[in-house]
């Protein structure tokens, strides 16, 4: 079974802090994704990566950056956390065959920025 793990289930940070969210997958998937989930808005894509050191902006990249130094690991960085970044963050991975592929999700990190 594919396993996608996220470093924390819950995080509490203060405004202005630098925040790192880590995601690791164990199925050698090329594609990895970071989403933000908010009530009534569904999942919105922040960034995705289709290869090591490659990244593409999604729909809401402002205030975020990403890093993919190894194939299995994809990090989301909040350079200076703000209260409007309080949300659930979901990581996903998928094989490289394209848009018909299933995405496999981690359990999510619930981030509260005070």
């Amino acid at each position, binding site marked *: 079974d594919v396993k*996608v793990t996220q470093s924390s289930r819950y995080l509490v940070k203060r405004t202005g802090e630098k925040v790192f969210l880590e995601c690791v997958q164990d199925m050698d998937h090329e*594609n990895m*994704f970071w*989403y933000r989930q908010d009530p*009534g*808005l*569904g*999942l*919105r*894509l922040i960034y*995705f990566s*289709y290869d090591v050191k490659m990244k*593409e902006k*999604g729909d809401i990249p402002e205030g975020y950056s990403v890093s993919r130094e190894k194939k299995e690991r994809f990090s989301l960085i909040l350079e200076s956390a703000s209260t409007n970044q309080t949300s659930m963050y*979901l990581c*996903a991975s*998928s094989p490289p065959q*394209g*848009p*018909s*592929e*299933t*995405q496999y*999700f*981690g*359990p*999510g990190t619930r981030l509260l920025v005070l």
Partner: protein
Amino acid sequence: AQSVTQLDSQVPVFEEAPVELRCNYSSSVSVYLFWYVQYPNQGLQLLLKYLSGSTLVKGINGFEAEFNKSQTSFHLRKPSVHISDTAEYFCAVSVAGSARQLTFGSGTQLTVLP
């Protein structure tokens, strides 16, 4: 660009009753369609997907969905729900040739009542 509309944000239903969760999409090109489920405090997992061929797709846990190209719909159905089906359900679309893969709807919270 593609978009997904889930018309009902909340659907309460009694146990053993049938349920239909509605999903409409818009796209100017061919699409792939997905339903994902999120149980409380978990990440998303795939229920079913339509890629091509038969318009009736069967998924896990007794769910099925029908692709209707003329109505641009992909409604999810189950003939008899259980308490354990209580979860949030997301419809998603992807477009052939697109690297970013999925665009999600806003979600439908299905609550099964005893």
